[in-house]
């Protein structure tokens, strides 16, 4: 093996690896210049708190997309597990114990839904897209059935989780950071992480290399379940109610975040860092458009365009790699 030729490609690596981070920095500077209210502690923590729930979902989606899966049910499962959690809390009274139980209930329900997703995807080899779409309908239906379609109000101290702060940092942000670290750890420092990349990159080869493909896929959904459950608690707590009709479209937001953060829709590529950068890009954009009073319909158009751009960039980058492959770059570089 011959090393040392890496230098020449350093810029290439930087460009491909940190392009998204550069985008974020540039965006940050532009936003700061555009509006004097942007660069304030208050505004920045606000943005962070606003993105925290979808970002936690996005970490789950990142893990899934990397392994060639996805979850379209996370918004609905949030509604289901969140309302149940709130109901549980109300039934048990305003105590710390019931708060912990409520969190565990939310996580258990979300993990259960994702276990079903995993079962259908692995045992029955059904496409994740269809399976989780079905789960979306079921979970939403279950949430509405449980509450007879009514919102659950007067949830007492449950709101602390979504609205409180520890020292000066809002609790949802702490959870976002926590799940960021967890995701990063899973993806880069565990066997599960490597297996996820391998399965998403080439499932047949992963299987032929002795990776328990179904087990890994199931794990991916279970981890996603934990994140969806916690996101549900934070969401319900922030909106002061158990909303069976809440969190609609959150799965799309989460997917968008992951994609903008450089997670490749075709699997095998993506990082936790990329996803959180993607989350802040969306957060900054939303925020600056609000601060400069861009029409909210126009905002939607802009967001859609950004998703399209991100996907086109992903494909462009892939083509670049393929072209290099055809040119047999590395084989020549040795000379």
């Amino acid at each position, binding site marked *: *093996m*011959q*090393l040392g*030729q*890496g230098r*020449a*490609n350093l810029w*290439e*690596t930087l460009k491909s690896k940190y392009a998204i981070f550069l985008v974020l920095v540039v965006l940050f500077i532009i936003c700061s210049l555009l509006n004097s209210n942007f660069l304030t502690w208050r505004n920045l923590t606000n943005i962070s708190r606003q993105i925290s729930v979808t970002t936690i979902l996005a970490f789950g989606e990142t893990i899934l997309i990397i392994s060639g899966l996805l979850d379209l049910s996370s918004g609905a499962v949030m509604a289901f597990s969140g309302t149940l959690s709130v109901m549980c809390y109300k039934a048990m009274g305003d105590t710390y114990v019931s708060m912990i139980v409520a969190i565990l209930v939310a996580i258990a329900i979300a993990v259960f839904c994702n276990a079903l997703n995993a079962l259908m995807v692995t045992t029955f080899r059904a496409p994740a897209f269809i399976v989780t779409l079905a789960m979306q309908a079921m979970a939403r239906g279950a949430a509405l059935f449980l509450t007879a379609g009514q919102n659950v109000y007067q949830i007492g101290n449950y709101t602390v989780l979504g609205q409180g702060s520890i020292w000066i940092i809002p609790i949802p942000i702490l959870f976002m950071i926590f799940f960021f670290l967890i995701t990063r750890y899973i993806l*880069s*420092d*565990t*066997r599960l*992480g*490597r*297996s996820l*990349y*391998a399965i998403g*990159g*080439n499932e*047949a*080869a*992963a*299987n*032929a*290399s*002795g*990776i*328990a493909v179904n087990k890994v896929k199931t794990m991916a959904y279970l981890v996603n379940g934990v994140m969806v459950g916690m996101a549900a608690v934070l969401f319900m707590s922030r909106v002061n109610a158990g909303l069976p009709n809440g969190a609609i479209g959150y799965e799309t937001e989460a997917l968008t975040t992951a994609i903008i953060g450089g997670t490749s829709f075709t699997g*095998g*590529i993506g990082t936790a860092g990329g996803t959180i950068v993607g989350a802040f890009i969306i957060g900054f954009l939303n925020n600056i458009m609000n601060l400069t009073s861009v029409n909210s319909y126009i905002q939607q158009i802009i967001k859609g365009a950004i998703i399209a751009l991100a996907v086109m960039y992903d494909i462009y980058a892939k083509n670049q*790699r*393929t*072209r*290099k*492959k*055809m*040119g*047999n*770059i*590395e*084989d*020549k*570089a*040795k*000379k």
Partner: protein
Amino acid sequence: MQTDIKLEVRNISKSFPGVKALDHISFKVRRGTTHVLCGENGAGKSTLMKIINGIYKPDEGEILLDGQPVKIDNPIHARSLGISMIFQELSFVPEMTVAENIFLGRWPMDRFRRVDKAEMFRQTQALMEREGLHYSPYEQLKNLSVSDIQMLEIIKAVSNNPRIIIMDEPTSAITDKEIEKLFDMIRMLKERGACVIYISHKMDEIFRIADDITVLRDGTMVDSRPASELDVDETIALMVGRRMENKYPWEDVPKGDVLLDVKHFSSAGVFNDINFHIRAGEIVGFAGLMGAGRTEVVRALFGLDPSDGGEVFIKGRKKQRLTVQGNIADGLVMLSEDRRRYGLVPIRSVLENVSLANLKKFIYKGRLHRREERDAVAEQCRRMNVKTSSLETTVEALSGGNQQKVVLAKWMEVDPDVLLMDEPTRGIDVGAKFEIYKLMIALARKGKALLMVSSELPELLGMCDRIYVLCQGRITGELSREQFSAEQIMHYAIGTDKA
């Protein structure tokens, strides 16, 4: 203007970021001849052909057709100039029928601009009959074998009635019988005055059909001569830039215990009553024609495909169930014939690919020790002589030979006792082939048991201690090294049993 030269390539250069893929290449293709282009993987053959076919634009130099300079914009333009290309990688739509694929993109239309299916199937039927292919135009491509599809690709290219036809390793996936058919076709094309540019590694083929030979090495043209002035050794020497001393580094390694013993192994409709064993230090070959069931036996043994009968003993211990994970744990691994599909995760790094099969070695308390992993992988890559700019390089960027070494490095990390190697040298260049042979011998010397499946008989004869021959899912013959004869193996392989 009528000249003897149909196509001339003059001073073509092409660079990719950081690399000069082609450096002032010139050669001439005479009308009505077969011009063979050979060179190691990465020598620039495919790049050159893609320039002629209009996929790439050259940085400098020109292409002359019938003495006139032409600028070829894209493959469609190339086709209109009478240039047709058969790709190494098959480009078909699996869900479509044979006829739809043959006419892909140029379906016959009726007057309402609808695809005229009747006409399309009629023409395909006629074409099939003319070329002597047995399958129906209504068959879906996904139901055909790789070799059938490759033949289809060849016929499709020929059916355009091209003046120049480029074939990029057309025989890598077809059977000997079909190779004969292909060569007949090439002769017919030549009689029509068309030129064939033929890319291949296989020396025996090259000398059967070549009128002229051009050798490329590292993007430069080494030599271009009539085939009659060259011989195999000289051509190989030109390709690799040095004379290959020992083509096969076989040596008589002392044999030990039986490490793999397979008894009455069966899979309904695929293979039946397969019995064989491999000793420590032994290299055993599986010979046979395409479709004889060699790959199927190996895949089933490794646990990738189901089997429904027989007993398998690894190191004397009977296997209850054949699973990939169980086999790896017991020290039995398989190198797939299709390394891009079953061997590698192309978009991930060399590092991740090499450690993939034995990650648990680097896990302590659930945490991956990346430093240790890196050191081990670097060491393995050094031993395997993997040429890569860094361990972070994605595997898809490597040449075929280096990719195969990465797969081997992955399995070496597991430190297996039994290696099932299905076409270990397919599609890799002469130099890398030799390295793989040497590695096989080194493994045998360490007391490993090796099974080599190969479609190249010389390779089996050169490397194996014993050869089993398969035909229609059965073992029809077994030969020890003293008994090796290509004729005998062919007899067993086609089932004429003249033992």
